[in-house]
């Protein structure tokens, strides 16, 4: 019953990752990311209740604070300030992306059948789910044109890693998790600052303009 519940939350995180692929608006993407992080925080909290470890409560609280409130807020501010076009541009159109994503998810489910996870596992299905979220995040990073959407892809990938880490192994040591949180928050802040500077100097934050800089 408990493992079913965790699986259910994992499924919601995966659905939101797929929704992230099919979104074509920046604000909507950020909202989807916030909701997804909320589900990750919920899963960490439930696992904390189950294994009664205080570290996981702190981890869930930090996820809620950083990923549901601070990072989406920063991204919203960045999008508003830069006055960029709110439509997401992609290299591959959304319909084809969804087809590719579905095959990626099937492959990750097939691959994980052959991996023998030793030790006490909460649920067998949660591992392929988090692996597919990681792949979906990586796919968002390579298929989108603007740095800010690539950043959202990176954050999705990080959510997948977080889900895998807590639900497969009952969480990492707290100090490691705090380190990861700092990495993410520093990464997100730096990325928004860099995007801001690119925007100021070249009036366009398309990745392809940056490629022509070397002359």
């Amino acid at each position, binding site marked *: 019953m408990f493992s*079913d*519940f965790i*699986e*259910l939350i*994992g*499924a*919601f995180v*995966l*659905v939101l990752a*797929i*929704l992230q692929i*099919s979104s*074509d608006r920046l604000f909507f993407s950020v909202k989807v990311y916030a909701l997804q992080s909320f589900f990750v925080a919920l899963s960490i909290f439930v696992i904390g209740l189950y294994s009664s470890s205080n570290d996981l409560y702190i981890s869930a609280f930090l996820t809620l604070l950083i990923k549901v409130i601070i990072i989406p807020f920063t991204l919203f501010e960045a999008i508003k300030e830069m006055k960029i076009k709110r439509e997401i541009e992609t290299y591959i159109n*959304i*319909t084809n992306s*969804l*087809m590719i*994503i*579905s095959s990626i*998810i*099937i492959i990750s*489910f*097939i691959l994980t*059948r052959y991996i023998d996870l030793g030790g006490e596992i909460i649920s067998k*299905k949660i591992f*392929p*789910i988090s692996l597919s979220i990681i792949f979906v995040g990586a796919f968002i990073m390579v298929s989108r044109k603007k740095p800010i959407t690539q950043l959202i892809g990176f954050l999705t990938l990080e959510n997948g890693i977080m889900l895998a880490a807590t639900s497969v192994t009952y969480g990492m040591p707290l100090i490691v998790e705090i380190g990861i949180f700092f990495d993410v928050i520093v990464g997100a802040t730096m990325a928004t600052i860099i995007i801001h500077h690119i925007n100021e100097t070249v009036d366009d934050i398309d990745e392809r303009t940056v490629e022509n800089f070397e002359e």
Partner: protein
Amino acid sequence: MADFLIAILQFILIITIAPLISGIIHKTKSLLRGSKGASIFQPYYNILKLFQKEVVLSKDASWISIIAPYIVAAVPIVLAGFLPVFNSHTLFSFNSDIIALVYTLALGTFFLALYGFDQASSFGGLGSSREMMVASLAEPALMMVIFTFALQSNSTNISTIFEHMHKGEFLQFPVSSIFALMALYFVIIAESGRIPIDNPETHLELTMIHEAMILDASGRSLALLEIGSFIKTAIFLTLFSNIFIPFGLYEANSFLAIFLGILIYIIKMSLLAVIIAIGEMSLAKLRYFRIPDAMMFGFVLSLISMIVYRL
């Protein structure tokens, strides 16, 4: 004999409740907008009034325009006899195959599209081509969802699938069920022409799909077409509610069980109608060329639902 009476009762229940769903959706939307809104029984009055009016046909119309409304209404009415509502005995339970149900519904859609073309109005043709596109995009997702449940219960018989779901199999595969639920919701929205795909309340030329096809219809024809679309929605919602809200399918034949079954069914349908209304209020209609993306999202969900179940 008792089984036969129960089957008749279920058949009549689906047909009589169908316009009520539309009424509840409309009333909820009006209340959410802050207006008073028409009574939830308004669709019944509309149909009664339309039956008393005469049919006006375009001079270019052929025999298709005369028979199409009858077929569009008859197909869902026959299929209502396939569906168990609160008891697994149905009128056609010997062959109530779920794949047959889906593809017989497509016959109704086909004749509706022909009706749109037949009266030689440009709007009708526009609506027909759009409707066929939406229907063809919704079909793979619907079939995938159905295959998932057919695999789970080892049968394509609707009664067997529903009995299987009512034994608490819903929680057996939660991940698979969640994906299937969302995919089926997408399909229902597309097939019944509700807001993110089609807006049933306007007659705006550029966006309408279902309304464009029945623009030329009048009197009895219009009433029959409306009945057809109401019952189609009711069939899909019955399918949805019996798979995902598995309460109220009783084996007992006592009067109390039947009464409770009917009551639970009406509550479930009203709940779904309110959910659809809230969904409609909070979403804007999708641009026409975004519909493939949305339907592909539904298809991917249904595909994953099946994969997760099998792997």
